[in-house]
């Protein structure tokens, strides 16, 4: 596109009062770029002014007014490149003239005086101008082949529900189930917990109806006795190889080399060729991830509903409960199997089990935690199973539930309440200390119960409330043919569940186009699974439609840009492949990355990671930001006797930048010697920008981003963490410039911590002041 520039400066909201707008106009004028000012640019008249120029061919606009976070609809001009220069929140409001007085007439006449705030505004205009010069309008990425079909892994209640929900919206779905029939654990229950008023009786299993519903859709294909050998490709264009469980085939997914195999005996990393060789041996008989299965089936998105397995309680110390030694101490799952097949009897001798003790919490009186992976489901299951005892032995059946906390959140409380009326069900808080053999039966000893300090109950059967272990705890399940490996990353944080880290965004995973539903993401009741499945189906559909439009999915939903690689200069260092939080890149044998644009979330982490700086986006790249940095004027002693410092702040646009805006809105002021540049994520921060800044004489650089660690807040998972690693390594580069480490820093700030920003910024500025100016200044 041939660019025609225009700069528009708003004088409203205090900008005109705070700044010498005429002088600002001088900057574009000097470059021969037309500039217009308006007292109220976002008003009809102001917009009209811009639109008139657009009609006359202007297509690259610098709007110097308020923050880009506001009036975004008003200053949106389709087909034009727009940069919003933040003179209001970023300059005028955060640098009130009461604290940063303008120059007096006398001072103006003396060339050794300068106006810090005016300098700031001038720099920002220059930065905006160079940015529109350096960026381009994005064009959407279109896949050559596109499939709208949805693959559902798992034919249990969650998988079937997801399939039906997607089918009802008009999508073709394939369900893959590893066992020989649909239904999963839902098919193995005698009854279910009630889900509507009056919550007083158990309901019949719904699984048969669900299976019938699945079968009623011609758009749903069911493959039982089948698992996924691999899923290759990217959203909109996945190539999936199926196989029978246990089968070994060439399209089984290869695994990445474990870290210990990547190094020699001295711990030194092996070279690329050696690693490639080892990888081949390690994955003998399996095709590389980049080999596409010619017979594979095409899918656009995946719903992972592979569910759970009952915890067999092999891990953990449950000897005091007689588990493993007493035959009539069983898990809740084993109890359900007994209940499903007939009346409740004891495994040891097949006699009726009329006195059943349910143990919810195994920790004696040391811990009030339930069994691992319990969630609140095991509380509800115990209530349900207690009811079975009463159903089977109405006259003399007795069920005892010992719990530390009865977990029946929401409406399930009503079911719990109903059960309290049953004279044969005894429920009490209590620590179960021991289960021992006692004659023909067992004795359960509990302490600190609501019914007494010590309690002994004779039991025919003891049922332990074992939890639901997500399938992903044992196996990657999705078997992605991705260079980063076949499974989900970092799910250790969630104890193996494929859960989202984000409270606001429960369907986020680190693998685009793959959405978890049901008990694989958290212990859930069937009702919860069904609900969750609908959400996962929506996300799968949304991903397909977004891919088809060539736009990104959450959190940069609608973004049309995607990373572009200049491969001639790639040195095969693999950093982009390794650092991408979403596993969007695969590399070949030599280590050259193969981008998969529809896996990409457009955070720019690859761009930040690349030492050769060959990755960029149409509107965001090394050059666009680098040029902004270079456009900042760095005054030296040639200009002034005591030149002001120049400090660069690279700011995460998602949280830190809004926080800066809030500081401005609240009239909190901070140093006028800092220049901020918003970036997509700190992960996209390339250290070259820091080097650029320092080598042109800027005195310090800091990053502002979000909290990292286990409770990370980064919308792109690893941005601020990766940035901090890069910052640690920057020392060498600084040493080569003979600069102090302290000139660069990274600060964590949450979006609501705007009140902390002024101190954070000013303290850094002071620390730089103490170091003295950058010796490169003026060169």
């Amino acid at each position, binding site marked *: 596109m041939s660019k025609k520039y225009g700069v528009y400066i708003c004088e409203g909201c205090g900008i005109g009062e705070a700044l010498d707008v005429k002088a600002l106009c001088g900057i574009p004028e000097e470059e021969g770029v037309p500039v217009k000012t308006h007292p109220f640019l976002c008003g009809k008249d102001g917009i009209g002014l811009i639109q008139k120029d657009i009609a006359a061919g202007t297509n690259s606009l610098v709007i110097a007014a308020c923050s880009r976070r506001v009036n975004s609809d008003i200053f949106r001009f389709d087909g034009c490149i727009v940069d919003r220069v933040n003179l209001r929140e970023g300059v005028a409001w955060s640098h009130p003239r009461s604290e940063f007085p303008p120059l007096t007439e006398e001072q103006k006449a003396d060339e050794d005086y300068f106006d810090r705030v005016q300098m700031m505004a001038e720099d920002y205009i220059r930065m905006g101008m160079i940015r529109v010069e350096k960026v381009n309008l994005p064009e959407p990425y279109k896949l050559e082949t596109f499939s709208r079909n949805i693959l559902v892994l798992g034919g249990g209640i969650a998988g079937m529900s997801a399939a039906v929900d997607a089918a009802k919206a008009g999508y073709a779905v394939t369900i893959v189930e590893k066992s020989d029939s649909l239904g999963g654990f839902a098919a193995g229950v005698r009854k279910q917990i009630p889900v509507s008023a009056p919550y007083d009786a158990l309901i019949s299993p719904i699984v048969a109806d669900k299976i019938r519903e699945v079968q009623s859709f011609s758009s749903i294909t069911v493959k039982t006795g089948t698992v996924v050998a691999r899923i290759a490709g990217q959203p909109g264009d996945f190539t999936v190889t199926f196989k029978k469980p246990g089968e070994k085939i060439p399209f089984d997914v290869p695994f990445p080399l474990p870290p210990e195999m990547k190094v020699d005996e001295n711990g030194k990393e092996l070279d690329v060729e050696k690693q490639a060789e080892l990888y081949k041996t390690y994955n003998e008989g399996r095709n590389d991830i980049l080999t596409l299965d010619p017979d594979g089936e095409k899918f656009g998105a995946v719903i992972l509903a592979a569910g759970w397995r009952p915890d067999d309680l092999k891990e953990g110390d449950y000897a005091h409960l007689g588990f493993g030694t007493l035959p009539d101490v069983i898990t809740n799952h084993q109890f359900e199997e007994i209940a499903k097949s007939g009346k409740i009897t004891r495994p040891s001798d097949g006699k009726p089990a009329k006195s059943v003790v349910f143990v919810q919490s195994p920790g004696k009186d040391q811990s009030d935690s339930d069994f691992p992976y319990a969630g609140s489901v095991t509380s509800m299951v115990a209530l349900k199973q207690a009811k079975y005892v009463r159903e089977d032995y109405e006259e003399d059946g007795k069920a005892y539930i010992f719990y530390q906390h009865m977990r029946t*959140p929401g409406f399930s409380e009503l079911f719990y309440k109903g059960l309290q009326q049953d004279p044969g069900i005894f429920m009490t808080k209590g620590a179960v200390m021991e289960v021992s053999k006692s004659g023909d039966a067992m004795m359960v000893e509990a302490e600190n119960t609501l019914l007494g300090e010590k309690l002994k109950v004779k039991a025919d059967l003891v049922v332990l409330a074992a939890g639901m272990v997500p399938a992903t705890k044992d196996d990657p399940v999705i078997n992605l043919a991705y260079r980063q490996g076949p499974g989900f990353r970092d799910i250790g944080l969630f104890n193996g569940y494929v859960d989202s880290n984000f409270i606001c965004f429960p369907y986020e995973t680190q693998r685009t186009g793959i959405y978890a539903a049901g008990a694989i993401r958290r212990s859930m009741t069937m009702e919860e699974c069904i609900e969750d499945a609908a959400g996962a189906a929506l996300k799968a559909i949304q991903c397909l439609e977004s891919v088809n439009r060539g736009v990104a999915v959450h959190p940069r939903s*609608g973004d049309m840009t995607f990373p572009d690689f200049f491969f001639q200069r790639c040195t095969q260092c693999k950093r982009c492949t390794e650092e991408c939080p979403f596993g969007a890149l695969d590399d070949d044998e030599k280590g050259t990355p193969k981008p998969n644009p529809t896996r990409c979330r457009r955070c720019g982490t690859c761009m930040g990671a690349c030492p050769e700086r060959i990755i960029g986006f149409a509107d965001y790249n090394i050059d666009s930001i680098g040029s902004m940095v270079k456009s900042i004027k760095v005054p030296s002693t040639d200009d002034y006797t005591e030149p002001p410092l120049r400090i660069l702040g690279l700011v995460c646009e998602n949280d830190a930048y809004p926080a800066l805006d809030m500081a401005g809105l609240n009239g909190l002021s901070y140093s006028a010697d800092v220049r901020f540049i918003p970036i997509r994520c700190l992960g996209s921060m390339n250290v070259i920008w820091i080097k650029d800044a320092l080598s042109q004489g800027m005195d310090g650089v800091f990053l502002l981003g979000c909290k990292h660690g286990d409770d990370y807040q980064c919308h792109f998972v690893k941005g601020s963490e990766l940035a901090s690693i890069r910052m640690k390594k920057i020392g060498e580069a600084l040493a080569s410039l003979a600069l102090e480490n302290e000139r660069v820093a990274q600060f964590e700030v949450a979006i609501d911590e705007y009140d902390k920003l002024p101190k954070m910024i000013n303290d850094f500025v002071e620390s730089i002041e103490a170091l003295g100016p950058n010796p490169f200044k003026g060169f």
Partner: protein
Amino acid sequence: MTNDKAAPASGSMMVVGGGIAGLTTALEAAEVGYEVLLVEKNPYLGGRVAQLNQYFPKLCPPTCGLEINFRRIKDNPRIKVLTLAEVEAVSGGPGNYTATVKILPRYVNENCTCCGDCAKVCETEVSDTYNLGMCRTKGAYLPFDMAFPARYVISPQIIGTDDAEKVKTACKYDAVDVDMQPKTVDFSVGAIVWATGWEPYDAHRIDNLGFGQYDNIITNMMLERQAAKNGPTQGQIVRPSDKKAPESVAFVQCAGSRDENHLPYCSYICCMASLKHATYIRAQYPDTKVYIFYIDIRSPGDRYEKFYNTIKQDPGVILIKGKVAEVSEDPATRNITVVAENAVTGEKIHQTVDMVVLATGMQPTAAGAKPPADLAMNDDGFFINDYAKGGMFAAGCANKPADVISSNQNATGIALKAIQTLVKR
């Protein structure tokens, strides 16, 4: 833009309620490609979560997610947002509804630049509803810092007064329009999602817990506002009677919930909320003791359990299984004594503290004001979804008590249910 052409929009939907559930339903549907009208009765979006200081268990600020959601709205031309708007009537059926929406005057038009000059000159102060009436705000106000839309509001209370004229004159951008009138507009939509959310249960109704009677008994939502930097105490947790830092705080769990006389169900969030509140207090006042009186600690799921286990380690947080039966005030010190029976030991506990926080539960907004639509409701005012009938659905806490995570799961799924109705058409 390429965005729009390929959209398979075979209809549009209306989402009533711009809290986190409504926002989620609206955005998720719009990002599939459907047209969405989002109707919110407040002058801002975000609902209850906008009033929260932090989310449990991550202790992260809700504005972080709201900011992303607001950006999604700004970037998506398929969503139209109406604030200060309420649905007056709904006619028609699935695939073909007419919704009559009444839009109240904001008295500020699109010229507003958010410069704040109007608030500076306005002398009248009105009750600050964003802060639950715990403080007052100018009659011309921005509901809160990060409010979206970022536009001032003029309280109807100053219309017709001198202040209204002052405010109008102060605005350099002709954004104040004191003659703005309510208007009623009809919209045709194929599906309607009710995400009308919840209200904190009115603690005045719990006779034995002294709310409204003793100053130093507050509710959990009030504590949330106190802890928030943009709240009435700028983030300082203080006891109301003397604004002093409390040296001891008691939390009364199930204040109204799990109680046949009030809310029979469990409100899902209050245990986790109080544990979170304990972290607020302990972070602010390392010597303050926190007593939590509970029936059961409901921290369902691995992540919540982990959070509970962490807080349990804090010697300054004392958890007592026992329901608080009565409270009393010492008129001299204004301290509160709570009386509870330790359910395990049977001993009667009298604990005197500086301040009491009632962990009140959630009551569906619709329990107080049933929407003018043919919707099935349970006895407590939650909507019952009828998926077979389709067309209209409830999402989030209008459907059942839930935390933010499950509410958003629900709201995402409901977007698909609404789409299914549109596809059928």
